[in-house]
Structures are given as structure tokens and as C-alpha cells.
């Protein structure tokens, strides 16, 4: 329970760091390079960690059955009616 709490707190802090560090960096820094360096660190760390963990986790629930279906769906009705147009 305690370990789970610590883990959740750690993930929360990391997620916050990833979101807010670029903002903090841009507010406090004078150059774009500094923003890039500071913002790049948490993003790179989290992306690397998540990718490596995903390599060790291969179990996933099957939610679809495409391999067992007919090649094409038999369409009984299809309509595409123009509604409106916008420009922005």
C-alpha cells in the first residue's frame, strides 16, 4: 500500500514536471536553447522510461476480432447527406 502510494506520488511529480517545466523554463530563460534543454530533459526521460517498460510488458486484452472476420463488411444501407459548410 505504502509502496503503491509512493509510486503514484512519483508518477504525479514526473507528469507535473513534464507539463510545467517547459512553461517554467520559458518564463525564466532568456534563450530558446535553455528552454529546449530544460524542457527536453523530463520529456526525454519519461518517453524513454515508458518505451522501455512497454518492451517488458507484452500482455494485452484482445478487444477486436479482425483476424476472424470476413474480408469485407456487407453494407445494406449507406447515405452521405450534405449538411453545411464553414470557412475559418
Amino acid at each position, binding site marked *: 500500500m505504502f509502496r503503491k502510494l509512493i509510486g503514484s506520488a512519483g508518477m504525479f511529480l514526473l507528469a507535473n514536471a513534464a507539463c510545467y517545466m517547459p512553461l517554467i523554463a520559458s518564463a525564466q530563460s532568456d*534563450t*530558446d*536553447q*535553455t*528552454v*529546449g*534543454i*530544460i*524542457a*527536453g*530533459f*523530463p*520529456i*526525454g*526521460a*519519461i*518517453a*524513454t*522510461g515508458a518505451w*522501455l*517498460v512497454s*518492451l*517488458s*510488458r*507484452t*500482455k*494485452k*486484452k*484482445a*478487444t*477486436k*476480432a*479482425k*483476424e*476472424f*472476420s*470476413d474480408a*469485407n*463488411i*456487407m*453494407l*445494406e*444501407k*449507406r*447515405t*452521405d*447527406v*450534405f*449538411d*453545411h*459548410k*464553414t*470557412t*475559418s
Partner: protein
Amino acid sequence: MAENLTYKCPTCGAEIFWNASEGRFVCEYCGGKFTLKDMHDNGQTGEVDEENVQKHEELEEGEYTESSDGTVGKDLVKYTCSHCGAEIITDRATAATICVYCGNSVIMSEQIVKDFKPEYVIPFRVRKEIVMEAFKKFSKKPLTPKDFDCESVVDKMQGVYIPFWLYTGSCHGEIVAKGINRRRVANNKTERTYYNVYREGTLGFECVPVDASSKTDNDAMDSIEPYNYKELKPFDPSYLSGFLAERFDEDKEKCRSRAVLRMENSTRDALEATCTYNELEVRDYQKQVNITKTTYALFPTWLLYTTYKGQKFFFAMNGQTAKFTGNLPIDKVKLVLYSLLGGVGGSVIGAILAAIGVFS
């Protein structure tokens, strides 16, 4: 007593087993190779007398306790090996096992007759040696702890025929959606054209598999799909020779919802795929699944339950295609170090992007 499922080599008389890679019986002593038909022609049919099956004995309270590694459930029963007379304690849903005392294949005939008789089986194709190589390759991940001993882990791997329900039917679906096409126009503006979209259609499905054993991890069984149905054979007990087998303990009604959900989701995907818009917002999806046939089959898997630093891990391999799945243990020190390295890499990339003016 449990019946022994023993096959003798027609040439030398030694006990022979099903050979996964050869796809037939192979004698380890004389090297003779025999198909199922050869064995039947030799009078070894392996047929079970349905009216005269041997029943299990109930355990007395406190007589045995269940294993802690998850290999058997809590509902244990007792059989007697007809070959050596030893007691075989096993789960109530076990259909075939190997006597730990005499090493003979033992079939619990009451588990493969009448309502429990499978219609089809896919024989094992992958040998244990292949499993060892595949697991070594599979476990070589950057975060796998160094002391995670693959050799000893694979040694505990067992070939098990897992019960599956195969659902055949169709799903009728209707979607109501908003289709949007985007187009760049003058003055750097975007024109969006909106359409009211309706699609109605039916998609057919054949043999959507759902594992029918409560003891196996559903996600793991899903992950080792698909099996090649071209190798489905009418069930014959001889395919179980040398392997373990389970009979279903979750009936077809209980497992149906998992197949239905998969059919519904795939039908929705197929309907959406007929809408060729830049964006599609589905407002409503109505569906109706009609299951026309349910088939009971046994599929080959290599299963492994193991413990590493007090934590339980489960791995499974498709015994026909050698596809592996399972969640490996993670070395947290490695995770932190690699993440820090990734962070340094991210900083370098950030600096380069800033230098080329991406942020300005």
C-alpha cells in the same frame, strides 16, 4: 483409477509420445516414426469407453493443500495412476497429466467424454528446446534484471492443452455519424464541409476464440493469438500424450460476452472504414450479435508460472506458432538510469531544435 494413455512403439514396444516438431509419434529408442493413422492401424486407438469411465475421488478435508505457485486451483481431487498405483492429486478440471512417480501419461477420461469432449484439437508444433531459445530471446529486454535466471525458469515450463470456445456468427451494426472534409482555401483559411452519415451492414465471424479455463490469464491467452485453424484436427486423445490438458470450467454462456464484445468492436471499425472523410464523429452505434455456432477445442500452449523476488510472473507461448507473451520483471535501477540517459538525450534534441529555430 485414472486411465493411462500409453502408446507403445509398433516396432520395439517402448512407450512413445507425440513429437511436436515432427507432427507424429516418434520412438526415442528405435527412432521409428508413426502417424496417428499408423497407431490406429496398429490397434492403438486411444478411444475412451464413455459408459465406463473412471471417476475421481474427493479429497478429505485437510488431506492436501493447494500449491502456492498458481499451477493448480483450490478445487483438488484425487486419482490413482493405473500404471503404478500412485495417488495423483490434481485440479478438478485437469484432463491429462503425467504421473510424477512413473512418468506415464495419464488421462482423466471423465474429463473428455460427453459434454466435456472437445470437437477439435490443434496438436503441438513447438518443442521444448524451441521454447527455451524463444524465452531467452524474449527475456533479453533492456530492463530485465541480470539475476533473472532464464535457464531455471524455462525448465519449469509445461506444455498444456488449454480449452477454448470458438464462436461463429455475425454482427449487424448501424452507425450514425458526422463526416467532415477539410480543404485549404484562399487567405490561409480552412473550409470544412459537414455530412450526415449513416451506415448499416453485417460482418461475419468465424471461430472467435475465448479461453474457457478460469485458471489461465485471459489477457495472456488473448495475446498469443492467432492460432492457424488450418491445423485443426478432430479430437483424438492421443494428441494429449506427453502433455498436460485442462477441460473447460467456464461454460460457453459465461465466455460469450468476450467474443460478442470483440465482434461488436470489429464491426464498428469495418463500418467506419467505409466512411472516407478527413474526420468522423460517431454519434450513435447500434449493434446486434447473432452467434450461430459454438465449438469446443483444445489449443496448445507452453505455460510458465514463476516467482521472482516474491512476485509472481506468468508467461505463455503459443504451442503452434511460438508467439510469446508475459510481463517480465523490471530492474528499477536500470529504469532510472536509462530514463536519465533519455532525459539527457531529450535535452540535446531540445537544444538542437531551439538552435534551428523551431521554438521561435
